[in-house]
């Protein structure tokens, strides 16, 4: 007798697979590690060659990210000693803090527009997907194809008409405009993904709920939605990632009030010297919300990706 099995991988196989996964993870994580470490370097260290793997960490990049600064005379600096650690960092460079930078506002814009459009896409997408999945919709297949066809070209191909429409409608550089735009782009993905998930939920559950004394809408809320959470969560993640990272439209359509972080971060690079640590600090903070959101929904996402692959 052997403990050899066709379906269960051997220890060697597991070991090899584990190593491969580890190498892959390292390769994909390397740029992120690079960004993370650059954020804690001084501008000089950040462009040193060969790159410094060991360096003295500083929060200078983060201070530069959140503040605007002006150079001052020795005399002024001597008369106005720093009050706290971040004024100290700036002081050491012979500068003083003139005020907060716009990073906070831009970041908040990203949060409002990203999560706002994600919520709207998933909300509308769920309703549309349910209708497509359950009801006799005239021209259903054509409508679904039409919805999908909006993804068949890069969204930026329609940038100019959208730019003109937004200007005429007064939507340029507004939160509502950007939420609307990202929702429009994401909705086709949301409808298709969610339709797939809802198709997988047998209609018998709703019929049982109808018999049990509920209306169609109550059955949708109490029976369909709880079973669709997996699909809704994974759809939400995909929508958020798109809206969060979108750059081209953000550059084109926003400049002030509604500008999101992606077009803003490169502008931090500064006047005169190239402030890579501040850019890296901005990029690092920019990663956090999507990461947290994905980790919170991770359990659903994993189930979502394998959903439908194996018959229950």
């Amino acid at each position, binding site marked *: 007798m052997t403990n050899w099995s066709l379906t269960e991988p051997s220890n060697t196989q597991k070991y090899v697979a584990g190593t491969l996964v580890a190498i892959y993870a390292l390769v994909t994580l390397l740029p992120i590690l690079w960004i993370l470490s650059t954020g804690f370097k001084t501008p000089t260290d950040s462009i040193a060659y060969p790159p410094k793997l060991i360096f003295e960490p500083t929060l200078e990049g983060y201070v530069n990210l959140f503040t605007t600064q002006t150079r001052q005379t020795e005399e002024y600096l001597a008369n106005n000693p720093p009050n706290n650690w971040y004024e100290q960092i700036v002081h050491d460079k012979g500068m003083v803090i003139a005020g907060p930078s716009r990073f906070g506002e831009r970041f908040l814009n990203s949060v409002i527009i990203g999560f706002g459009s994600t919520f709207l896409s998933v909300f509308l997408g769920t309703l549309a997907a349910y209708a497509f999945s359950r009801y006799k919709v005239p021209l259903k297949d054509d409508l679904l194809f039409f919805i999908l066809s909006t993804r068949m070209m890069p969204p930026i191909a329609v940038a100019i008409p959208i730019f003109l429409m937004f200007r005429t409608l007064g939507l340029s550089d507004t939160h509502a405009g950007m939420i609307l735009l990202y929702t429009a782009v994401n909705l086709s993905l949301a409808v298709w993904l969610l339709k797939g998930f809802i198709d997988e939920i*047998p209609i018998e*559950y709703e019929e*049982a709920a*109808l018999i*049990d*004394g509920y*209306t169609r809408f109550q059955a949708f809320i109490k029976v369909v939605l709880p079973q669709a959470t997996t699909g809704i969560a994974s759809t939400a993640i995909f929508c958020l990632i798109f809206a969060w990272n979108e750059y081209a439209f953000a550059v084109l359509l926003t400049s002030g009030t509604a500008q999101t972080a992606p077009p803003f971060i490169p502008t931090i690079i500064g006047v005169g010297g190239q402030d890579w640590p501040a850019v890296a600090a901005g990029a690092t903070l920019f990663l956090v919300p999507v990461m947290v959101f994905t980790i919170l929904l991770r359990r659903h996402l994993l189930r979502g990706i394998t959903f439908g692959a194996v018959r229950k």
Partner: protein
Amino acid sequence: MAEVELRNISKSFGRIDAVKDVSLTISDGDFIVLLGPTGAGKTTTLRLVSGLEHPDRGTVFIDGNDVSKTTPAMRNVAMVFQQYSLYPHMTVYENLAFPLRSPLLKTPESKIKEKISEIAEVLQISHKLNNRTTELSGGEMQRVSIGRALVRNPSIYLMDEPLSSLDAKLRADLRVELKHIQADLGATLLYVTHDQIEAMTMASKIGVLEEGRLVQVGPPREIYEDPVSLYVSGRLGLPRINTIPASIFPGAPIGATTLGLRSEHIELGTGLPANVIRLEHLGDQTQLHLEIEGHKIITLTDVHSQLQPDDIIHIQPKDPLYFDPSGNRVR
């Protein structure tokens, strides 16, 4: 419970006529079994009573009221589905409580608890109440699904092949249990099956459906002994009724072309010679395969029969059934 009446109900899906002009009265306390092969319209009839489908023509009455255009919730019917349809995101208790918590019944929680523990006791699922439904075995799932119907006090219980996906032993157990429960509650039941044993043992009346038409309704014995057509005669009886040309044996009435022979209609030892093809020993019975003038016949014989293939045995019909060319009974 209430009286349910279908009057001249028809329903088609696209070009397929699923149910054609069906009229049926289900009296209070009746256990009616709809019998027929796949596609005969059994499930559609059930769904028309439940309100999940609306008839194209005809009227559904519950307790004398026309409910043809109402939703399932307004009809107060309970249904057990073939595939259980237990809510997978809820526990067994929550599944059983679901109909009681509906806007239709709005039962107080204390009453729900009382009712559920009572039903769980009967169905022997008390120890599973806090389990997820996905953790149950097939038999347990079906008990819960029957329980979800039984917690209510509906006008009628509708059951769509509730036992068909269970193994043989469980099916037999639950069959007996279900009949008990129905008798205890005095419940009105409309039950769909293609299993003739379920039909024979549980029904107070059997309705036989043929391509959407209700061809005969009556007590099980009547359907078995006095079928109106060849089709109905073939729905009940094991081994299945044998059909041979009526001209083989003398004595056929005028107009009869087909002779229907159940095992008890065949007298062995006298009459015309038949070839023994083979014997199948099933333990409690022995099936005897014969051939007479090129027509195969299956009947029962003595369990300890010593017959061999190629033996000759004489057979003679005894009070058989006769049918005309279109399959109708000739008396």
